[in-house]
């Protein structure tokens, strides 16, 4: 069977994307994107709608085929089996519809792929995951009757169940790939979920999240990839990327940065910067 690389091997805790391109049909949607991420970091992908963020994420999670190279823990993701990938990373899609009237605990339970969990362990894992996303006591509710924000959090709980420990038994980190995890949440739950994701990274896991909200990105991301027109516009640490002219260029809209109070987190506001 598969052999995990030893944990000391530095590549085993990295995501390496090198000159990755993705085409759907004949149209090339992502072109020549390179960046790398370490487990233990929260990496945000930002950029205007249609800039290829979701498409790039789908290539990283094994859903779309790509040219170039995308290596997770040193292995080309396009060559890994669904079962193997499922052990090392969880994926929160941008939108999730289910086809039959499952209740919340049944949806979350689909994420418990660890066969060693007994019936009780399973129920406990489901309950804990729901508590983490602020949905304590929702187990018996019908998924289809929840609000969009609640559904999104149920899906996140499902993903958390799948990669519960940020670091696997063999010492290898696990990864969360999240597509706009907080875009339909209210402000309290946005912060709650962002803290949860940042905590996952702080505990040694890897987090790659497509982000819509620049202020949340500034508050939580360690490194940021900026996409525009299917290409990488910039990649770097938070302070490198959170620059008025760079963001203005990315979004084709004048943006400025301010700071509120003693906080060292910049706030992005309209106006001021020049549009190139």
């Amino acid at each position, binding site marked *: 069977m598969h052999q995990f690389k030893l944990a000391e091997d530095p590549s085993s805790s990295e995501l390496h994307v090198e000159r990755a391109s993705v085409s759907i049909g004949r149209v090339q949607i992502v072109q020549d994107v390179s960046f790398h991420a370490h487990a233990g970091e929260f990496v945000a992908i930002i950029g205007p709608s249609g800039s290829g963020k979701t498409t790039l994420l789908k290539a990283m999670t094994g*859903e779309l085929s790509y040219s170039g190279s995308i290596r997770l823990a040193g292995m080309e993701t396009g060559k890994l089996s*669904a079962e193997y990938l*499922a052990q090392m990373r969880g994926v929160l899609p941008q939108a999730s519809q289910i086809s*039959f009237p499952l209740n919340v605990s*049944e949806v979350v339970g*689909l994420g418990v792929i660890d066969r060693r969990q007994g019936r009780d362990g399973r*129920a406990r894992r489901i309950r804990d995951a729901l508590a983490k996303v602020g949905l304590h006591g929702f*187990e018996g*509710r019908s998924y289809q009757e929840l609000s969009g924000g609640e559904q999104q959090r149920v899906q996140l709980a499902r993903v958390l169940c799948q990669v519960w420990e940020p670091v696997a038994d063999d010492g290898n980190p696990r990864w969360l790939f999240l597509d706009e995890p907080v875009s339909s949440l209210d402000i309290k739950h946005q912060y709650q979920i962002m803290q949860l994701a940042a905590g996952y990274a702080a505990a040694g896991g890897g987090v790659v999240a497509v982000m819509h909200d620049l202020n949340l990105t500034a508050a939580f991301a360690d490194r940021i990839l900026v996409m525009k027109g299917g290409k990488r516009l910039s990649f770097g640490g938070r302070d490198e990327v959170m620059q008025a002219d760079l963001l203005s260029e990315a979004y084709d809209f004048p943006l400025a940065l301010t700071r509120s109070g003693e906080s060292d987190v910049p706030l992005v506001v309209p106006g001021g910067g020049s549009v190139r």
Partner: protein
Amino acid sequence: MTGIALPDLFARRFVSSGGNREPLARAALVLLAVVAGLTMLVSLAIGPIAIPVLELLPHMPGRVLAASAGAPEGVSARDWIVVTEIRLPRVVLGALVGAALAVAGAVMQGLFRNPLADPGIVGVSAGAGLGAALFIVLGNTALASVMAILGIYAVPLAAFIGGLITTLLLYRIGTRGGITSVATLLLAGIALGALTGAMTGLLVYAADDQQLRDLQFWGLGSLAGSNWEKVASAAPIIGVMLVSVPFLARGLNGLTLGEAAASHIGIRVQRLKNISILLVAAATGASVAVSGGIGFVGIVVPHLLRLTIGPDHKYLLPASALLGAILLIAADTLARTIVAPAELPIGIITAFAGAPFFLWILLRKRGLTGL
């Protein structure tokens, strides 16, 4: 919404905490198994001749397993013949066909992610019927050599191939990026059903009188003429399906999230789809070969069960097998007693009960999603 209030309420009562419907589902399986046994006994007892079934019961396993003819001591020879050569094979065949149709419906609905997918409605049964009709009509002439090799399995096998081709075509036509549109699926099913129906119609010209009568039975569906040979031809195929279907449960559950998300949690989606399609076509083929076009079992049974025990395939699939068997045996008992000494084709009864039910699901679903 009033229609679902009762089972829903029942389910909510039973599941007081934790949203865990499994205890309810397990209890339902036990209940269904008991009811299935009782239904079989009642069906054996009822008919033009009343049979003291309980007295004969201890002797029956021997007949089924060893094919030993002759009445055991102390049993009226007439009763014995009626039960073992007429009613028992019919009940066994009804149970097999009912289980196969219901499970095929449940699997197909999981695969197409659509509660209205059913081998009968989307034309798979019609495709299987064409395969079977080919051998019924041409089995003694053009296809005699194939018939000689395959024996009693020729008709089920041809029905399987006809069903398989139709399922593959449907999947090609009705599914885009893992998502099936209800409208496309149903319309494609109508078109394919009409096409295969027309081809079956052509065979009428090549058929003699006996074959014509046999063909007519396809259109309506009937368990009349059940015998042990038919049981033997269908049982291996349906048996394989019923045994392998539990292994699909996790995959079909994952598929409720969509193909991409199912793959993300480690399900090999392509393999799952291939196996499901094969099993649906095989079970539909075997059922159609021995009983013609009995409709709606595959729609009604899984839908009723989802409303009561929930959509978890781990329980839905075995419960569908049991409830399918129960309903089909009950409908068949009705079919052969309601206008006695004549007989109604059972397909008429399942259609009378099932078609309004289908419309009800359709209207309810349209209310929710606009189709």
